């Protein structure tokens, strides 16, 4: 993971004996629950979803081995719900690696004991984009679209005229594609483009 200068300094200076009020001599045990134990900075604690950064692309959900991260669609209310359950988490930090926006933030928290399981669950709800034409909800969120807008270079947008088509349902897109193909028949190039595009977008989604 990225290590800024101050961070590495911190790493170098970090001393367990200081941090946990150990004495170097006997006794080596600590009255643990009564003092708070500080984990080293490298420690992979419970990840935390930063709702500001999260775009709800679901990359983390793909990567997560134990299904601690779950994504659900709620087309009625136009909501895409990303649920993180620390009780199932194995702290492998794969989600942090794959997150495109760094919304999954590493922490050094390790105490998950609680009498109420709700405390272990983080839920982030995203508003789904809706189709400009038919007004029904799309499968991806506003933020995803924003993100795509930001990362894709302008010319690509123009080239594929994404600007006006990005917020459309599949069917609508299909229809338009067909129309477009009709307009420029005999020329397969746009269709090939489309395939490439989908790949790009798919990557983001």
């Amino acid at each position, binding site marked *: 993971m990225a290590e800024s200068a101050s961070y590495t300094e911190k790493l170098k200076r970090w001393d367990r004996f200081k941090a946990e009020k150990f004495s170097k001599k*006997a*006794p*080596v045990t600590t*009255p643990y629950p009564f003092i708070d134990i500080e984990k080293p900075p490298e420690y992979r604690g419970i990840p935390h979803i930063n709702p500001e950064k999260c775009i709800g692309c679901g990359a983390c959900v793909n990567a997560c081995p134990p299904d601690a991260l779950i994504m659900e669609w709620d087309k009625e209310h136009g909501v895409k719900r990303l649920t993180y359950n620390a009780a199932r988490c194995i702290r492998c930090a794969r989600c942090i690696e794959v997150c495109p926006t760094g919304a999954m933030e590493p922490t050094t928290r390790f105490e998950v004991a609680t009498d109420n399981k709700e405390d272990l669950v983080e839920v982030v709800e995203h508003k789904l984009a809706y189709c400009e034409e038919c007004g029904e909800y799309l499968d991806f969120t506003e933020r995803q679209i924003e993100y795509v807008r930001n990362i894709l270079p302008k010319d690509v947008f123009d080239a594929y005229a994404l600007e006006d088509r990005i917020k459309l349902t599949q069917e609508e897109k299909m229809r338009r594609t067909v129309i477009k193909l009709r307009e420029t028949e005999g020329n397969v190039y746009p269709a090939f483009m489309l395939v490439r595009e989908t790949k790009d977008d798919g990557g983001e989604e």
Partner: protein
Amino acid sequence: METAVKLGFSLAGIIIMLFLPPYLDGIARRVKARLQYRRGPPLSQTWYDLRKLFGMPSVKPTKKALFTWAPYIALASAISAALLLPYGNVVPVDFGYNLVVFFYVVLMVSVFLMLAGLTVQNAFSHLGSAREMQVILTVEPLIAILYGVLAYNSGSLDLYTIMTGLHLTPSLVLTYILLAYALYVESGFVPFDIAEAEQEVIGGPLSEYSGRLLGVFYYAIYIKRFALLWFFISLLTLPWIGPIGTPEKAALVLALQFVLTVAFYPIIAALEATNARLRIDHVVKMNTRAFFAGLIILAMAFMGW
């Protein structure tokens, strides 16, 4: 000494005998913890444990009455054994102030421990009882011999006479050494705690006990250990400080006994901490050897050495 003083000393004795043993165990825990580089529990942790156990209901594995009563009888006999010991030079309740009686009354703790273990249909507690019995079986003859030496040395089995009438001979010194060993075995410290071995037979005779009854049994065992130690300490001190005439001197003696008892326990704890548990056949072998050593000592005593 007039009765008031006697009463006072008896009261002191009773208080010591009832409240000290768990603290002694606490001391042992602390010492062990320090030897293992741990912080260890507070001194009164054993008291907390007992209180907790007293507060809990027990699980009932059998309908036998003996199962219910054994802990109480064990505790009662442990306490009566402790009451038979000299505090200062006062014996709180003198129902037979001599070696054999004391010894048998102490033995009753183990007897009822074993019987309790045998009331339930549980191989582990049976094993534990059998082990306890085999330890006693091998250590009692040794103790008998040593009592023989003491009796011969002082001319009587009566503890008053022994406490005053012992005279120092080589055989007596050896007797003290062996007696220390025998009492250590008898009180079931590591490495001789094979009867209650946790990892092998889950608690042995105690494996079926829980909650309050278990607490009572533990309390009985602590008091038994205390009684044996106190007995040894008195045997170590009383004969050599001459007749005790005044209450002041008696008080001094009591203080000495107390201090020595508290001072001996860390040694025991250290021994416990630095040893692994023995197997039953090891113990049998060791005790048999000790028995023959005792025979030699007895012969020496009778030859007047």
